[in-house]
C-alpha cells in the first residue's frame, strides 16, 4: 500500500504550505500500534495544528531514542525502559507522554503449549533479547510468580528472530510485545498464540510514548504542544474507529502487515491506553513514572535513577505533570 | 632400452600444424615427415620461427597436429608422452625450488628411487658446474646456469628419447663444448634417441648422426644430411675432419649463412 501520505488525505489531510515539517521515527517497522498516526494524518489532525508529518519506520526503540538525541528526527515513538537507560546514560531527551500506559511486555507462547499460568513455564525454554527491559526484568517476573531463575532455560536471540523461532518450536515461549507479535504469528502460521502480561504480575512499566530532545523542548515548546495535542486526538479518534485507522495505515504505510492483522494489533493495544482510568491518551501520573523507575533500578541496572522529572515532561499532554 | 624393439623411435608423417587466432592464422609446420631410427641423434637446424620448437612439442604430445600423425616408440602420440625427456627452450624452472630440488622434480613426478635419483642429481650438478648452488633459487642464477639446471632435469631419468630445444643456447663456448662432449658420451653409453634443436651448425654436425635442415615459416624439411663420423667424437679432432668442413659448408649454404660453422 504505497502512496504519498500527504496527498490523498480525506477531510483536509493536506497540510498548509507554511506548516512545520516534522518527522516521527517509530519504534519499529510498521505494525498496528502505529495506525493512529496514519489516521491522524489522514484525518488532518496534524494539519490542523500546522504540522506536516512524515512517519518513518524505526529499528528498535534504542535506535529511535538515539536518533532523537542526535536531532535526526523531531520526535520518536519509543518504549519507556530503554528511554530511562538512555537518559541515565546522558542522552539529552525526555518523554512528553507515554501512551501505552500498561506495558505490553509479555511472555508469548503457542496455545497448544497449554500454558495458562506462570507455573506452567517450569522446565520450558524461553527466548529473549539480551539488553532489553523484558529480558532484564524476566527474573523478577519469575520471582513474583514463585519461580526461580533455574526453573526455565533462557535462550538469547536477536529481536527480529524471535517469532520465527517460536513458530518453529525452537523455544517454548518468547519475551515480547503480545499486541505486535501475537496477531502476526497467528496470521502467518495459523497457530494460536497466548500470552502472560508482565503487568498482570505486578511488574507494570510504562510502554511506548513520544520522545523529544531537550533542545526541541526548550526551543520549540509550542510545536511540542501542538504535536502532542494532535497525537492525543489521533489516538482518541483511532480507538473509536479502529477499522478506519487501520485502513488509513493500510493506504498510506508501506509494506505494513495485512489489514486484518493491523486491526487486531490495534484492538489489542487499545486496553493498554487505560483510557477509563486516565481520561485522555498520553496523560501519565508521577506515580506511574516513579514505579517504572523503581522497577528499572531494582532489576535492570538503572543507576543513579533520580526523579521522574528527569525523564518526563508531562506539561504538554496535560495531567498531573503539567 | 625399449626403443631397440621397434624399428622407428620417432615417426612423423605428413605433419601440419596451424595456429589460428582471431587475428590471424600461422602455419608453423607444413607437411613434415621424419623417421628416426632408435639410437639416432638428429640435429635440427632452421631459421628462427620456422617451427622447430613446435615439432618437438608435437612429438612430445604437447601440441596436437592439425593434420598428420606422430608415433613415438611405436605408440601413436595422442597426449603427453612420459617416455621422453624434454629440455624446453626457456628453462621453465619452478621459482620456489632450489637448483637440486628443481632437478629432482623429475624423480618425484616419476616416482624414482629417491636415494639413487639424489646421487644422480649430484653427479649432474657436478658435471654441469653448478656445485655450490644446490640450494640457490632460480632468480639467483645467471641465464646460463638456469639453462644447465633444466638440462640436468631432462637428463635425470635417462629417458629412451630425449627432446632438446636449444639446450646450450645461453652457454659460453667452453661450457658448451664440455657439455656437448658429455652429451655425446651419454648418447653412446645409453643408446638414447636424441632430437636436438640448435642454432650452432658446428654443434649440429658435431653431435648428430643426421642433420635435418628446415625452411623458413611455414616450416618444411629442406634436407636431411647424414653425418659420417664415428660415434665417439672429440672437438679438436672433429674440427679438422674434412667431412665436418664439407657438411657445415653444405648446411650453411642451405640456410643461406655466411659463417663457417
Amino acid at each position, binding site marked *: 500500500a504505497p502512496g504519498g501520505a500527504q496527498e490523498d488525505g480525506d477531510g483536509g489531510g493536506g497540510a498548509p504550505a507554511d506548516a512545520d515539517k516534522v518527522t516521527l521515527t517509530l519504534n519499529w517497522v510498521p505494525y498496528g500500534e502505529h495506525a493512529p498516526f496514519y489516521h491522524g494524518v489522514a484525518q488532518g489532525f496534524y494539519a490542523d495544528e500546522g504540522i506536516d508529518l512524515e512517519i518513518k519506520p524505526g529499528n528498535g526503540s534504542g535506535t529511535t531514542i538515539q536518533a532523537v538525541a542526535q536531532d535526526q528526527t523531531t520526535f520518536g515513538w519509543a518504549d519507556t525502559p530503554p528511554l530511562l537507560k538512555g537518559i541515565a546514560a546522558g542522552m539529552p531527551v525526555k518523554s512528553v507522554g507515554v501512551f501505552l500506559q500498561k506495558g505490553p511486555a509479555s511472555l508469548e507462547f503457542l496455545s497448544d503449549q497449554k500454558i495458562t499460568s506462570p507455573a506452567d513455564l517450569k522446565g520450558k525454554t524461553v527466548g529473549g533479547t539480551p539488553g532489553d527491559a523484558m529480558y532484564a526484568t524476566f527474573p523478577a517476573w519469575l520471582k513474583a510468580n514463585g519461580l526461580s531463575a533455574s526453573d526455565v532455560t533462557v535462550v538469547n536471540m536477536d529481536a527480529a528472530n524471535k517469532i520465527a523461532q517460536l513458530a518453529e518450536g525452537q523455544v517454548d515461549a518468547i519475551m515480547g510485545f503480545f499486541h505486535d507479535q501475537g496477531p502476526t504469528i497467528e496470521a502467518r502460521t495459523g497457530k494460536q498464540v497466548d500470552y502472560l502480561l508482565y503487568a498482570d504480575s505486578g511488574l507494570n512499566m510504562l510502554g511506548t510514548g513520544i520522545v523529544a530532545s531537550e533542545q526541541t523542548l526548550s526551543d520549540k515548546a509550542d510545536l511540542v504542544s501542538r504535536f502532542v495535542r494532535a497525537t492525543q486526538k489521533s489516538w482518541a479518534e483511532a480507538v473509536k474507529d479502529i477499522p478506519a485507522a487501520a485502513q488509513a495505515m493500510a493506504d498510506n504505510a508501506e509494506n505494513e502487515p495485512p489489514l486484518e492483522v493491523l486491526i487486531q494489533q490495534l484492538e489489542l493495544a487499545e486496553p493498554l491506553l487505560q483510557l477509563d482510568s486516565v481520561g485522555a491518551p498520553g496523560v501519565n501520573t508521577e506515580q506511574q513514572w516513579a514505579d517504572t523507575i523503581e522497577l528499572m533500578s531494582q532489576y535492570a541496572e538503572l543507576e543513579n535513577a533520580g526523579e521522574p522529572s528527569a525523564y518526563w515532561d508531562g506539561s504538554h499532554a496535560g495531567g498531573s505533570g503539567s | 632400452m625399449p626403443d631397440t624393439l621397434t624399428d622407428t623411435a620417432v615417426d612423423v608423417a605428413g605433419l601440419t600444424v596451424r595456429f589460428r587466432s582471431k587475428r590471424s592464422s600461422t602455419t608453423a609446420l607444413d607437411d613434415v615427415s621424419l623417421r628416426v631410427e632408435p639410437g639416432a641423434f638428429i640435429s635440427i637446424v632452421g631459421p628462427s620461427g620456422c617451427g622447430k620448437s613446435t615439432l618437438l612439442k608435437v612429438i612430445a604430445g604437447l601440441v*596436437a597436429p592439425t593434420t598428420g600423425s606422430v608415433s613415438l616408440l611405436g605408440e601413436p602420440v595422442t597426449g603427453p608422452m612420459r617416455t621422453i625427456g624434454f629440455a624446453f627452450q626457456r628453462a621453465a624452472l619452478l621459482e620456489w625450488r632450489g637448483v637440486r630440488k628443481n632437478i629432482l622434480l623429475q624423480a618425484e613426478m616419476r616416482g624414482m628411487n629417491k636415494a639413487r635419483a639424489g646421487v644422480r642429481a649430484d653427479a649432474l650438478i657436478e658435471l654441469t658446474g653448478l656445485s655450490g648452488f644446490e640450494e640457490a633459487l632460480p632468480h639467483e642464477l645467471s641465464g646460463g646456469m638456469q639453462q644447465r639446471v633444466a638440462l640436468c632435469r631432462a637428463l635425470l631419468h635417462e629417458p629412451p628419447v630425449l627432446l632438446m630445444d636449444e639446450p646450450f643456447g645461453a652457454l659460453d663456448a667452453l661450457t658448451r663444448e664440455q657439455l656437448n662432449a658429455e652429451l655425446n658420451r651419454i648418447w653412446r653409453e645409453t643408446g638414447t634417441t636424441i632430437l636436438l634443436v640448435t642454432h650452432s651448425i658446428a654443434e649440429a654436425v658435431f653431435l648428430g648422426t643426421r642433420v635435418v635442415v628446415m625452411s623458413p615459416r611455414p616450416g618444411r624439411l629442406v634436407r636431411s644430411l647424414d653425418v659420417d663420423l664415428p660415434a665417439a667424437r672429440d672437438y679438436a679432432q672433429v674440427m679438422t675432419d674434412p667431412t665436418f668442413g664439407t657438411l657445415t659448408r653444405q648446411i650453411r649454404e642451405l640456410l643461406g649463412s655466411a659463417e663457417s660453422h
Partner: protein
Amino acid sequence: MVTSKDVQPADRPTPPAPASRFDLGARLLRFLDALWRPAIVLGALFVLWWIASENEWMPHYLVPTPGQVWDTIAGDWSSLMYHSYVTLYETVIGFLLASVLGLATAVLIAYSRTMDKALYPIVLFAQVIPKIAIAPLLVVWFGNGLAPKIMLAVLIAFFPVVVSGVAGLRSTDPELLELSATMGASRWQTFRKIRFPNALPHLMAGEKVAVTLAVVGAVVGEFVGASEGLGYTLLLANGNLDSAMLFAALFLMSLIGILLFVVVEVLEALLIPWHASRRTATPLTTS
C-alpha cells in the same frame, strides 16, 4: 578428458581480439554455451525448492512456495523495483568508491614501506570490526540518508581490493621494473604501463569479491536505519513473518549481486584477455 575437439590447436579458444568484438554471432553462441550448465544447476535447485515448499517439508512461513514469491514480486513489482534500484544505486556507488580508494591504498602500501607499515594496521582494523556493530554509530553520525549505506558498502568492499591490489602490484617481475627504470620511466609511468596491468589478474579477483560484498554492505546499512531499499524490505518482511516477501527481497539482492559480479567478470575478460588464466592450457595438456 581429451576430446577430439580439444586437440586441434586451431580450435584453441583464443582471447577476444579487437576484430572479434564485432563477431556478434559467435559471441552470442559462446554466451549461450556458457549459460546452459548454470541453468541446469539452478533449475535443479529451483525444482527442489518447489517440491520441498509445495509439500510443506518446511512450513510456508519459513519457506514459501515459488508461486507465493512470484505473486509477491508481481504484486509489489513497482515498489520492489524501486527498492532494488535504491540498493543497486548504493551498491554501485559504494563499490566504485571502494575500488578507487582500495586501489589508491594498495598503491601506497605496495610502493612505500613506511605506508605499508603505517596504513596496513588501520586498514586491517577497519576490516576486522564487524560492520553490523558499527552500522548504528554510522547512522547516528551520518543520519538516515544514503551516506551511511554507501559508507558501509565501501567499508566492507574495501579490504579485498586492497589485499589483492597489494598482492598484484608486488608480484611484478623485477626484470620488468628494471626494464622500466632503464627507460627513465617515472613512477607514474611504471605504474600505469607495467605494475598496474601486471596486477590486474590479482586485482580483478579482489574486485569480484568486493562487488558481492558491496551488496551486503548496502543491505546492512539499510537494516539499521532506512526507509527504502531491499534491506529495509527484508527487515519489514522479517518483522511481519512474511516469508514470501523475505524470499523476494533475498532473490532481488542476489540478482543484483550476480549481475554486478557478471559485469566485473566481463570487464575482466576485456581487460586481461592476455592472461594465462584466460587461455586454456596447451591443447593436449589436460592435467
